[in-house]
């Protein structure tokens, strides 16, 4: 009966994929390949917008089943409270296991030693991440890094190999052809898998809008005390007090990336909705990291250097 009906109906061609459909399909494929090829993967979830997209993609990849991996956050202890609360709530809503490992624990163990109490803990996340990888024997870490973020990332593979010291060797990467990924490793080595490698910041925002994904409130415009320091806005917090001579202003701002308080700067904005953020992003004249990461401006090669040392 059903066959007859289906035969009678003239069959229209399947609709062509728009660019978000295509990016989504690719990311789901990558997530399923990690699950198929790796025995003990983990998904890095910070509560930031890129990893929020990853969770949505993981739902599309594996529901109604459970995720075939837990979630891990490497916490510097200096994250915005709104983001940490969001992280915990989102993991609970999904019913997935969230692991948190803290840079402060590494400091207590003596594996992280700060040069000064005020030093940014951001780069020390590498140590804590490698410790967590060893503790749980993870063979793959899924992350939300994108190739458009930074020069060194433009050449990184979707499945990026790390040796047993967690190091990335940019000159000796595995060739990656078609959509055939090679996740084979020896014990102690690790794969970093980046499902949204081919997304840009604008793609991420468009996807958030289309999927109506919830975000931590600091992504939207709010009034916050800041000081202006060499072209960037520095939020005034107990960790980042104003320096002598700097005037504190109340400015309407939003964060384009969220991370450690000491190295994440907001941009001036009145965008209160995702649609307004998309309009601003499409018209923006400053790259995401340039404006908002206080740690990447040090030198043109700074990200490449940190990645070689095991940074995500």
């Amino acid at each position, binding site marked *: 009966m059903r066959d007859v009906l289906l035969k009678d109906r003239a069959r229209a061609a399947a609709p*062509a994929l728009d660019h978000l459909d295509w990016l989504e399909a690719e990311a789901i494929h990558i997530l399923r390949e990690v699950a198929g090829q790796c025995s003990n993967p983990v998904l890095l979830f910070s509560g930031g917008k890129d990893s929020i997209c990853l969770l949505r993609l993981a739902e599309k990849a594996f529901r109604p089943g459970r995720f075939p991996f837990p979630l891990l956050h490497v916490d510097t202890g200096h994250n915005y409270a709104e983001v940490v609360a969001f992280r915990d709530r989102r993991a609970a809503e999904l019913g997935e296991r969230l692991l948190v490992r803290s840079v402060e624990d590494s400091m207590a163990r003596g594996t992280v030693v700060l040069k000064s109490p005020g030093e940014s803990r951001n780069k020390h996340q590498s140590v804590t991440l490698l410790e967590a990888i060893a503790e749980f024997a993870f063979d793959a870490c899924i992350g939300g890094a994108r190739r458009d973020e930074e020069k060194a990332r433009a050449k990184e593979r979707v499945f990026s190999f790390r040796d047993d010291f967690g190091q990335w060797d940019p000159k000796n990467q595995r060739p990656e052809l078609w959509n055939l990924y*090679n996740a084979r490793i020896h014990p102690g080595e690790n794969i970093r898998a980046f499902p949204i490698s081919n997304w*840009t910041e604008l*793609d991420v925002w468009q996807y958030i809008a289309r999927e109506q994904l919830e975000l931590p409130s600091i992504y939207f415009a709010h009034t916050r005390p800041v000081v202006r320091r060499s072209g960037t806005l520095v939020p005034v917090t107990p960790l980042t007090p104003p320096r002598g001579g700097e005037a504190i202003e109340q400015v309407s701002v939003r964060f384009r990336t969220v991370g450690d308080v000491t190295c994440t700067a907001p941009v001036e904005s009145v965008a209160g909705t995702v649609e307004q953020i998309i309009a601003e992003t499409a018209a923006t004249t400053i790259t995401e990291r340039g404006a908002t990461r206080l740690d990447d401006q040090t030198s043109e090669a700074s990200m490449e250097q940190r990645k070689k040392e095991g940074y995500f």
Partner: protein
Amino acid sequence: MSAREPLPEAQLEDNGLLRFLTCGSVDDGKSTLIGRLLYDSKSILADALATLERTSRKRGLDAVDLSLLTDGLQAEREQGITIDVAYRYFSTGTRKYIIADAPGHEQYTRNMVTAASTADLAIILVDARKGVLTQTRRHSHIAHLVGIPHLVVAVNKMDLADYSQEFFDRIRQDYLRFAAPLGIRDVRFIPISALAGDMVVERGNRLPWYKGPTLMELLESSPPAHNEAPEQFRFPVQHVCRPRTAEHHDYRGYMGRIESGEIAIGDEVQVLPSGRKTRVRDIRLLDRCLPQAGSGRSVTLLLEDEVDISRGDMIVSPSRTPSVTKRIEAMVCWLAESPMTPGGKYVVRHTTRETKALVTAIEYRQDINALKRSAGGRLEMNDIGSVSFKLAQPLFVDPYRGNRSTGAFILIDEATNNTVGAGMIV
């Protein structure tokens, strides 16, 4: 359960995504062309531009060097060359583009094959003053071999050739003379100056004799991925979802990406290797039910009968099935330092399936510069040759010419776990 969805509304604004490859040598102005595409499509942002100006000044250059936008790694900056494939992104508002920027040197054939493997279109740069060179032939040959459907020959540096139509016409004739025997059919020619910006995004007014589209117009109108020839349905199973919860007690979802063709609810399908036939009961994307789904989509298929299916199996249309075979012949591009020799054993990764392979013969090496074949024996790094394999387990394959997904595989060295070869099934 969930309601059937109406067909999506026609989307006039979004023309999908196009992946293209740029190839040329250091001197052809490839980096300048990419810089120009990014710059004129307003994809370079203020702080990146400021870095660019600073670096250009530091190197004693008068004008901003657009080529600096594309050299990423420290080692490359030091040596002033490009040693690896880099991916760049820009969007025109109607279409998103992914550029694979491949280095031009002969010793980087493997990088070009890598970049070409995912491209729908290749831009081959020719210096207007130098014309068709050995490397032009090499790049065209590789692009064709790797199955890129559309080639664009961009005759660059027209500003240094007096914007002369004669130069352009001669290059066009030279190119067609060598391309025809290769079987290259869809090839377009555009005179450009990446440096001055003529015919890239803007037409400029220095090439009035050229009436064709600008490079950007050509990119905007090129058919998007997988939208051309009708293909057979191929669905390699990546993951089987059996939640075994109270709510989803008997749920068996077969998860994967439609590599080619399309599928609708009610369609008959065949499962490989078992050969069992059944019908599609539902096509899911999270909580959506799709009446049909086409090439490129990642979905979950529910089938009418209980069939034993695991990762590595393939669900296909029963009318034209792939060959189920333990012997394959392929054109192989060798990627590793240590050569491939007959008798060598490797792991083959094909779609979602993995098996062991023995090299039974290397019939010949393809000289991609001179378009001739030489005796086989072994394949060194960057060689491309015809290789026969015997497999431990069968693969479900189509010829690469007809299907870039089920016709492609990689070879992995079991000792090092490195990816050492790229194969295209004949």
